[in-house]
């Protein structure tokens, strides 16, 4: 069996970046457009349209009440229609459309095909793309994943979008029928159906689509489609009755999962979702819903979340857009009193203490972690899949060699405290004649020790020298250049490391990326792959230790925090463009033109991301994982490009 490349492909990385920025793309529109029912925001430069006299107030039924009571998962979205309508007039759209790579993409045959497809859809539906998107997203939109009957089987899906206009909903059904008839791919032709006074079409025998008033109903089973239509029609009828003067009626009930979701999450989020863990687990027959992580690093980062999720009854999440920020959060109920003992290594007890962050020059990514390594190692059986035992065994052996034969879990880990910062920076190669062809970012680990770091630091220093010795012996066999070991003072600390001699041209220049360096300062040990970075970190650690200890950019309760600078990452990727493009060509079979376009589009979109964050926070009753993004402010040049 061939080993697959464990590193994410360039397409994967760019897809994640694009999706992240895609989320952000909604943010400025949200800031400028109301996301409650109402008029869409006026286009830039246009005066608001004159308002028609307001109709008599009515109370529309709660759309979530049409969903089945028992659902495995639900989703509720509000305000997306307005966002869709406002997008084309937004600053963000102008910035994206102004990107050089986007303009190249517009000239590709695939883009022309996309435009042709959109034109066809517009023709069939009678709606412009923005209006079509708004209609499909609805206001609100509700979705549920349901298991039909009592026997476990494949879940079915239902989605209902409130278009607000019965004609639009009917048009969409007609358009879907027309598109299905024109398609040669479907095995079954579309067929009409009527139920509960609503008219619809069955697409390829698999999807039921119907218009009920202004509500568009989509379901993947006939029974679910019929039941949803019946509820929708009944609810609207009840609401019409309630709207009569003097009439009252109880609001249609929503299912318990929807109730729980709304009670748990804030009112400000545009998208809310919830998962019934027990119901979802019943669908998965090949193991637990949230299995233990099969790699040790994953377990170290998210092991507590996985364990808590498996014990929770309902998981809830939300997407919140505010100004230039977007936040996606997942909340896992986990009462403090009932958390299992084996989660003790995840820093919950000290979560309220500030978690340190470091920001050396040219920072790309930083990870701040509150984890007790010694306890994690002891509890690994509860946290990790048994397959990881080999990783731990290899780590023990390899690191044992590094630490002069000492037992890593028994003698080294107990000396480390529960704070670790990992930073990744772009290198500038100040001592090299020329930067290498492939520029690898520098990495550094900053450990907090229990007490003074000197004793453990000396053990680390011996390990670094051992590593340099082994590396040099190996390089000598290959007729490569070697590292010159050094021990030098730097601003009050002693640095142990190895560096390439700039005049030795025997070695490929990629080796210039690696110059291990180690030092310790007070209660911190710093190990870096570049001297330049180590010097920066020493200066940072010396600058104001007391202030650094008290301050933290992370909110209270944070036990893990990742921060990334989109623009800096884009710059670093650009420096390796040729290498990454050729990788995409050889590994993915893309043409050079395709690979270059995808790369350039990806990095230019990353340029739009000022900061991205992943945070894990702990409170007395829950664990929360959130992904946050901040859009970079538009520069004058970008504004000019987009106009």
């Amino acid at each position, binding site marked *: 069996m*061939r080993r*697959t490349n464990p590193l994410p492909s360039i397409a994967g990385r760019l897809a994640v970046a694009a999706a992240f920025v895609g989320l952000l793309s909604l943010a400025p529109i949200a800031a400028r457009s109301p996301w409650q029912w109402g008029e869409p925001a006026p286009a830039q430069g246009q005066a608001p349209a004159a308002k028609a006299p307001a109709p008599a107030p009515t109370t529309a039924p709660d759309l979530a009440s049409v969903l089945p009571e028992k659902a495995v998962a639900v989703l509720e979205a509000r305000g997306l229609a307005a966002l869709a309508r406002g997008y084309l007039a937004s600053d963000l759209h102008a910035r994206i459309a102004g990107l050089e790579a986007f303009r190249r993409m517009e000239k590709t045959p695939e883009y022309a095909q996309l435009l042709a497809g959109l034109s066809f859809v517009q023709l069939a539906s009678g709606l412009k793309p923005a209006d079509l998107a708004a209609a499909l997203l609805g206001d609100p939109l509700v979705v549920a994943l349901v298991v039909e009957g009592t026997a476990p089987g494949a879940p079915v899906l239902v989605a209902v979008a409130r278009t607000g206009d019965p004609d639009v909903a009917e048009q969409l059904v007609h358009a879907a029928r027309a598109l299905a008839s024109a398609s*040669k*791919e479907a095995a079954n032709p579309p067929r009409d159906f009527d139920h509960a006074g609503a008219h619809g079409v069955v697409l390829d025998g698999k999807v039921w689509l119907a218009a009920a008033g202004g509500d568009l109903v989509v379901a993947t089973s006939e029974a679910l489609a019929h039941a949803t239509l019946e509820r929708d029609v009944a609810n609207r009828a009840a609401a019409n009755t309630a709207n009569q003067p003097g009439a009252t009626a109880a609001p249609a009930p929503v299912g318990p999962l929807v109730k729980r979701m709304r009670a748990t999450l804030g009112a400000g989020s545009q998208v809310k979702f919830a998962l019934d863990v027990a119901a979802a687990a019943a669908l998965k027959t090949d193991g637990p819903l949230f299995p233990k992580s099969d790699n040790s690093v994953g377990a170290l980062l998210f092991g507590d979340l996985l364990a808590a999720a498996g014990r929770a009854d309902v998981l809830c999440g939300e997407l919140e857009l505010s100004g230039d920020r977007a936040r996606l959060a997942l909340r896992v109920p986990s009462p403090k009193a009932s958390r299992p003992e084996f989660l003790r290594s995840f820093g919950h007890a000290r979560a309220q203490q500030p978690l340190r962050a470091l920001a050396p020059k040219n920072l790309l990514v930083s990870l701040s972690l509150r984890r007790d390594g010694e306890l994690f190692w002891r509890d690994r059986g509860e946290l990790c899949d048994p397959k990881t035992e080999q990783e731990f065994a290899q780590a023990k052996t390899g690191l044992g060699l590094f630490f002069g034969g000492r037992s890593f879990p028994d003698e080294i880990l107990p000396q480390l405290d529960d704070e670790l910062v990992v930073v990744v920076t772009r290198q500038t190669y100040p001592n090299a004649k020329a930067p*290498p*062809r*492939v520029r690898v970012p520098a990495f550094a680990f900053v450990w907090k020790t229990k007490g003074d770091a000197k004793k453990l630091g000396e053990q680390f220093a011996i390990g670094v020298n051992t590593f340099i010795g082994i590396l040099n012996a*190996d390089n000598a*066999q*290959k*007729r*490569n250049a070697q590292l010159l070991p050094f021990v030098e003072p730097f601003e009050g600390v002693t640095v142990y490391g190895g560096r390439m001699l700039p005049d030795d041209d025997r*070695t*490929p*220049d*990629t*080796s210039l990326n690696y110059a291990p360096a180690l030092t310790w300062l007070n209660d911190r040990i710093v190990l870096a792959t570049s001297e330049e970075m180590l010097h920066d970190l020493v200066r940072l650690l010396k600058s104001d230790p007391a202030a650094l200890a008290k301050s933290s950019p992370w909110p209270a309760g944070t036990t893990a925090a990742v921060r990334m600078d989109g623009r800096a990452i884009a710059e670093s990727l650009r420096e390796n463009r*040729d*290498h990454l493009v*050729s*990788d995409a*060509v*050889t*590994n*993915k*079979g*893309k*043409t*050079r033109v395709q690979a270059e376009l995808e790369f350039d589009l990806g990095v230019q979109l990353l340029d739009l991301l000022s900061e991205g964050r992943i945070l894990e926070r702990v409170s007395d009753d829950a664990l929360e994982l959130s992904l946050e993004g901040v859009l970079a402010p538009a520069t004058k040049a970008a504004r000019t490009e987009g106009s």
Partner: protein
Amino acid sequence: MSALARYRPGADGPFGPAEVRHLFRRAGFGLPWDDCGALARKGLDAALESLLAADEGRDAAWTSRTANEVAVAADTGKMAAGEPLKKLRALCLLRMAQTRAPLPEKLALFWHGHFATSVEKVQDLRLIWRQYRLFRETGVASFRALLHAVSRDPAMVIWLDSDSNERLRPNENYARELMELFSMGVGRYSEADVKEAARAFTGWHVRHLDFWLDEHEHDGGEKKVLGKSGRLDGGDVVDLCVEHPACAPFLARKLLCFYVHPEPDAAAVAEVASALQEEELDVGRTLARLFASRHFFAPEMRGALIPSPVEYCVATLRAVGATASWKELGETAATMGQALFAPPNVKGWDGQAAWINTRTLLERGRFAEAVAFGGGALDVRADWKRAAGDAFAADGDALVARMGDVLLGAPLGTSSRAALHAFAASPAAGTGEARVRNVAHLLLCCAEANLH
């Protein structure tokens, strides 16, 4: 009738898409069927001109530059066998698929098998790639010039131990293989010739990745090689080998086995040898005459060769205009028995029937499935609708005929054709693109798919 008598379309036989396909599959890495038709309409001369074109095209030029960068940036030693080698193989295969100069590209593959230098001993991708570029740039011209260049090529110096060939301790490795494997063949020289030739190559070393004549280690004394005496050096020995009467027939046989028939008859060998001598051992000009000959287009030459894994994989992808993970393709070809830049020994790959055994045939079957259905590590993506052309919605017979023309390098046998017709007409074949893929898969599993 002279084997190299020029083929006269019409008089000697047709010159249609099948003939163009035969020409480009043998001399290059194949062409899409529709392009075969277009070239056929232009005639034999236009087809040959296209085959012998020198301009590789912009994409292939970019691939070359990238491969240079990969080789230069790679570590040496065991690291060379890891990711950088896979990437280099991938870029090489991509070039073969992209190139608009098929003859030099195919010849480079021929010389790679002929001079059979392996990265596993050389352990430096820069040198291996430099040698491959030498084959591409020089291999299409004078064999004499090529052999001189190869004798001084650093990868070859390391591969055949010229690096340890010293005045007081001559190493006979290169001298022997020069005569036996590279220029004359077995039985054309004596052991004394080998010993004396080895002395001529003493001091032919490598320093700082370049050829270096270590004067101190070179034996400048009197020697006698192949009947000629004098203070001969390595260059003189190369000339003696090339001028030996056995050289042209030896080279002619190898070219015929690679391009025409695994067992060429003596008359054909003699004619091609004669042509080589007339052309002063210019391989490109000789091949141009061979590819224009009646012998080359004779019916018994069609489907007579078993393509090597690299030829088979690249030609199949070119036939349907597909892309794939080129890195994975390199691994696939290696599993089929041909790892680029790592031939099994100094004799290179045996070829022909040696490409086919139970293990490699299974791997070819897996490749066929990957091509037809996509996905997996190889991730082949083909435009099947375009490949099927007008036969996409036609009856089963027409589809089988069309896809057979597109995918196969040899005519489909009667029983295979009948079975495929029956399948294509049955409900099991499916409809639309699924039907095309299913037919393509079965065609690629036929024996004829492993011939060209």
